[in-house]
């Protein structure tokens, strides 16, 4: 009987491109990821060779030994360089760097936030002009600009003269922590302003209107709506200012003088004058660890917002 015969399987034709064919789907996905890998390959190579490799060398050196003459002996691996991180002098420099970097970050935030807010609420034309103004300092060399601050803050500069009644005739601003913080804020303020501007520019200001409509005063609307919603920008800007401030070399070197050494200058000194590469490397690894913590804080916050 015809009814008892199973229809042959081939009678249900499947188009070649059927999306429910698992093998084809997987092949397509693999091709996709292969393409992605090929596109990323150049930058991957670049990062491995030019970024990861030096880092590995630094880590390796930090466990090496320094010879009497200042040569690095790649043997006798030990932790003595790390132990020296806890010297009172090193700790003092480290804490000072931490403190100055934090101060720089807070001041940049306090100065940068209102400006970024102002920027974000202007018409597109005004925004363009103001953004260019923020960028202009980048068009000249950082070192030269820092030397300019030396003139401004120097003995005969306008600040010292203006503040003479307070500072006295012997007063000075240059080569003090104050000068370093001024220089750092000056140098890194754009890194605070730009991410803040990016978040505030995307902020839906009808939310602020809604808060005002719901009986919030201007301040309440700011603290309850604008500020929490601009947190990602605050965190990004703070990290971008904190990290380079903490490891700063040029600014404390030029504006800080001998009494305001920061960790960056101290590292450089290990490599150049003290010729103690293992200790310099250990210091660098320690700085790296601090920055890593900062970065983790950043990504944590960002993920929580999302």
């Amino acid at each position, binding site marked *: 009987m015809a009814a008892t015969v199973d229809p042959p399987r081939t009678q249900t034709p499947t188009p070649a491109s059927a999306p429910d064919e698992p093998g084809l789907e997987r092949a397509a996905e693999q091709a996709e990821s292969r393409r992605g890998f090929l596109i990323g390959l150049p930058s991957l190579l670049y990062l491995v060779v030019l970024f990861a490799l030096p880092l590995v060398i630094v880590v390796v050196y930090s466990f090496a030994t320094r010879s009497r003459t200042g040569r690095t002996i790649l043997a006798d691996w030990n932790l003595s360089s790390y132990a020296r991180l806890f010297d009172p002098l090193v700790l003092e420099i480290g804490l000072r760097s931490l403190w100055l970097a934090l101060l720089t970050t807070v001041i940049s935030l306090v100065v940068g936030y209102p400006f970024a807010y102002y920027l974000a609420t202007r018409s597109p034309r005004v925004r363009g002009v103001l953004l260019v103004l923020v960028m202009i300092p980048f068009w000249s060399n950082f070192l030269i600009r820092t030397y300019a601050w030396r003139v401004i803050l120097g003995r005969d500069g306008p600040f010292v003269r203006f503040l003479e009644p307070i500072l006295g005739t012997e007063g000075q601003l240059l080569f003090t922590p104050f000068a370093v913080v001024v220089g750092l804020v000056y140098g890194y303020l754009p890194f605070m302003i730009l991410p803040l501007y990016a978040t505030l520019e995307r902020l839906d200001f*009808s939310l602020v209107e*809604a808060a*005002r*409509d*719901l*009986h919030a005063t201007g301040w309440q609307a700011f603290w*309850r*709506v604008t500020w929490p919603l601009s947190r990602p920008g605050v965190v990004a800007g703070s990290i971008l200012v904190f990290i380079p401030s903490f490891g700063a070399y040029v600014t404390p070197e030029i504006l800080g003088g001998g009494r305001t050494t920061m960790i960056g200058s101290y590292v450089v000194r290990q490599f150049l004058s003290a010729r103690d590469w293992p200790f310099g490397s250990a210091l660098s690894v320690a700085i790296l660890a601090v920055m890593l913590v900062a970065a983790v804080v950043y990504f944590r916050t960002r993920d929580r*917002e999302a």
Partner: protein
Amino acid sequence: MDDHQLAGTLDAGPLAAKTPVLDTVTTEVAAVSGIEVDAPLPAVRLQGVTKRFPGGRNHDPVVAVDDLDLDIRDGEFFSLLGPSGCGKTTTLRMIAGFEYPSAGSLQIFGQEVGLEPPNKRPVNTVFQSYALFPHMTVAKNIAFGLEMQQLPVDEIDRRVAEVIELVQLQGREGRRPKQLSGGQQQRVALARALVNHPKVLLLDEPLGALDLKLRQAMQLELKRIQEQVGITFVYVTHDQEEALTMSDRIAVMDGGRLLQVGDPEEIYDRPRTRFVADFIGDTNLLIAEVLDADTARLYDGTVVRVPTGAPAGSTVTLAVRPEKLGLWHADAERDLRLDALTGTIRRVTFLGNAINYEVVAGERAPVELVVRQGNTPGIEHFADGERVRVRWLPGSVAVLED
């Protein structure tokens, strides 16, 4: 939506309690401003309100709202209706306090508020884009206004729970706005405004982002909620159908000006201007020559009985809705109570629930009319090219002012 399970969920107490206080204000203010003393104080009164925006370089300022006079009554569902760019949102934003009027006076229950900041006004807004706080839960969003007014925590909790029930969001208190559908977000926006028991609730096209079915369901629900809480709703829409179904009264705007205010029937049946007649529903516009105070003549010679209000010999525009016209065979008996016009069917369009007939009368200056007949059982159908007589009750024709 099941209406029964919602009945009486919102405590009308705080709202009702405010009324007596207002009544005394009514008479005082009314006496000062010289307006009829007996009339109850309007919820919102706009007098000569104008809003000009700077027009940018080398441009004249944009007049978004032009010398608006408007009274919105206490407790009514009032719609601002008009095409895009006619100034509806600007008017609403001035009432809310997001824009300050360039000229004129704006009062809420007799109190001049034109220059008060939004947080000091007894109104709340439902935004078109909802503007829910993305970093707060549904409950926190709703509680926001009450927290800002520093109400005791247990009262906040009670009122939030109450309004969540009113808009049927039970069980979603802990969610973030992003985790809700468009319709649910809409309800949160509504609840967040209503929980403050505003004297006036402002809504800017609150259903604009919803699809048709949900939109219709929400129309009914909004109307139900409005009736239940008794708050004055000022509702902005460009959808004439929505305005007709929901409103107690409608203000039609165009180009920043107010064209007509009235209840839906008035607006629909007796439009005063060509724009209103055309914007709301379908309409036949006919040019006629005035014969005397009660009659006018169409180009084809048909005499129409209308209160012309214009000198003999001048021309007026008449408006009549397609569904107010009846269709008969040309040789049908004359009915003297009805006006009539004889013409030829030029096109028949089947609409499902109705049939549209385009009728042309006269030769040199033809009069064209659309007649709509309900597709009801037993009704006679006509064919293309048939001679017909179109008849109507004299009262169904409106004379336009322009």
